[in-house]
């Protein structure tokens, strides 16, 4: 069946789209030639900015989750939580709970960077959320 001109051109552009999708990525830019392309450079700058902005949002989100979890643990109380911990873990968390009770704004910032504390909170959360599996 004879194809119309619009059908032929439509297929032509569709084929260009397919070939663009599968085009070898290594061949597109040799020796960082994209730096001569203002459109690409503009969007690379935007990507850097957005990456930084979204990281800040995600860090705030993570921090808020940590505080919520810490508050939950605090409400449950150390005596109750102790039941889920081995003696070594109990020794580790006791001073941290005291630290939480006297939490200042400065401490709040440092919590996010306290990897030991974060790992403990995650471990506690898992134990409290899945007590039946223990």
């Amino acid at each position, binding site marked *: 069946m004879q194809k119309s001109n619009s059908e032929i051109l439509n297929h032509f552009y569709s084929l260009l789209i397919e070939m*663009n999708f599968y085009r070898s990525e290594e061949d597109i830019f040799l020796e960082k030639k994209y730096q001569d392309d203002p459109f690409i450079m503009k969007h*690379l700058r935007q990507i850097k900015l957005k990456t930084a902005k979204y990281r800040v949002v995600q860090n705030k989100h993570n921090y808020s989750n940590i505080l919520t979890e810490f508050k939950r643990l605090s409400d449950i109380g150390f005596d109750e939580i102790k039941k889920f911990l081995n003696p070594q873990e109990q020794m580790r968390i006791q001073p941290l709970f005291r630290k939480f009770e006297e939490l200042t704004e400065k401490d709040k910032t440092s919590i996010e960077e306290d990897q030991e504390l974060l790992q403990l909170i995650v471990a506690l959360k898992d134990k409290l959320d899945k007590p039946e599996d223990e």
Partner: protein
Amino acid sequence: METGKYFESNHKKLESISDIENQWAVAIFKCREHIRHRLKKKTLYGAHTEERLGMDPFDYYLDYAYSAILSGNWEWKNKYSLSEQMVVIVESTLSTEVEKTKTTKAKENKTVLVDDKLFYNMEDRPTEVDMTREILYAKQISVIEDAIKEDSELEFFWDCIKESMKRVEIAELMEKTPKQLDKVRERLINKIKNSPFFELDQ
């Protein structure tokens, strides 16, 4: 500005790429080509005008795609490279904009994006072809056919296109690797890109 549930997994993938700036540049390049070819399908112009989108369509769709990955609101699938995932997001957004301009009934027929549809969306074809448009199409085809005259390789390539053959089928028939076929495509584009009939079509 909010992050989504794929934030951590998307950023883990980004951090694992050593030449990340180059990969983003490739992704931007491929998305720009994709949008360019899609916009050449004249019937879709209305959905993608600057007036309707509030900004240049190239900036609009690109910004949407990388924001979707960086925010983690769109899952970067393992089967795709960064540039492929970006093109998939751009195509999905382009289709959504087209859907928005269609009738309510058409909007209800939500389509699922699969790879083949990414390239060969026959809904793009005009439903009503007016006389002016038909003359332009005829002229464009004659520009291509004049440009490739006496170049047997390009004539063969064009015959395959007229037969609605896809990339893999053409490569097999012409006995070319995908890379070699890409060179053929490049030669064809170079022959017609300065024609006013194709410039008008951009």
